[in-house]
């Protein structure tokens, strides 16, 4: 039986991943709410992890380095989201807002 990797070209995965990454980039650049920016960052990290796994499956299936790298991406994303939530809560307590454009004390 043919595996899925033999039926779907690598480009298809890269295509989807590129679209997800760009949509995430749009979210990071345009949203005002810090939690929404965080969600967009998760989208981008996710797209990168898909890229790693796809390249790993198509170019070195024996060593599966892409898979290992994707595991590390997930771990770092989990650390990042926990820390970011702490910072957002702190900002919210001090300034009663979670909108990044209202936190502009350092802006000249």
């Amino acid at each position, binding site marked *: 039986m043919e595996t899925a990797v033999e039926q779907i070209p690598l480009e298809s995965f890269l295509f989807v991943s590129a679209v997800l990454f760009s949509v995430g980039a749009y979210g990071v650049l345009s949203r005002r709410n810090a939690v929404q920016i965080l969600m967009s960052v998760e989208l981008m990290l996710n797209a990168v992890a898909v890229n790693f796994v796809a390249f790993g499956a198509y170019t070195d299936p024996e060593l599966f380095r892409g898979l290992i790298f994707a595991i590390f991406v997930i771990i770092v994303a989990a650390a990042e989201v926990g820390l970011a*939530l702490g910072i957002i809560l702190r900002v919210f307590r001090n300034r009663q807002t979670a909108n990044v454009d209202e936190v502009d004390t350092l802006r000249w």
Partner: protein
Amino acid sequence: MTIAEIVFYLLALVAIVGAIGVVTAPNIVHGAMFLILTLFCTAGFYILLSSEFLALTQVLVYAGAVAIIVLFGLMLTRSGDGLPVAGAGAQWPLAVVAAGTLMVTLLTAVLDSDWPNDAGEVTLVSINTLAGALFRDWLLPFEVVSLVLLVALVGAIVIAHQEEPEA
């Protein structure tokens, strides 16, 4: 069209619709639900790529823990009259231009390049093999990342901790 292709295109469609929902939903909680949808579709991609352990990790860590943390963040940052409103800043047309340029560039690069499509013998990576690699060949990165996770956890508690006023 084979079953794998149908599954892939379905997953890809839902993942992209979900991603667009994340950045456009007027209600942020709906955006978070769209995020969970996209993360589940990504788990589907991992299964198609014969990485079932990663798919399980994705569902547990991303669609489970990260989504819950995001929902907690939304719950704890609302001010008086309900949930924080979603909305784009004044710079959103520029963001469309930047992200659009990025997408066109990436898609052109993807479609114009010659990718190796000879997958060779693809086998399901068993958990035994994966654990052997993770704890033998990748032991140092594994330990470093566990330290990163610990420091991030302690840091999050320290930053979010409410100090008691001095008596």
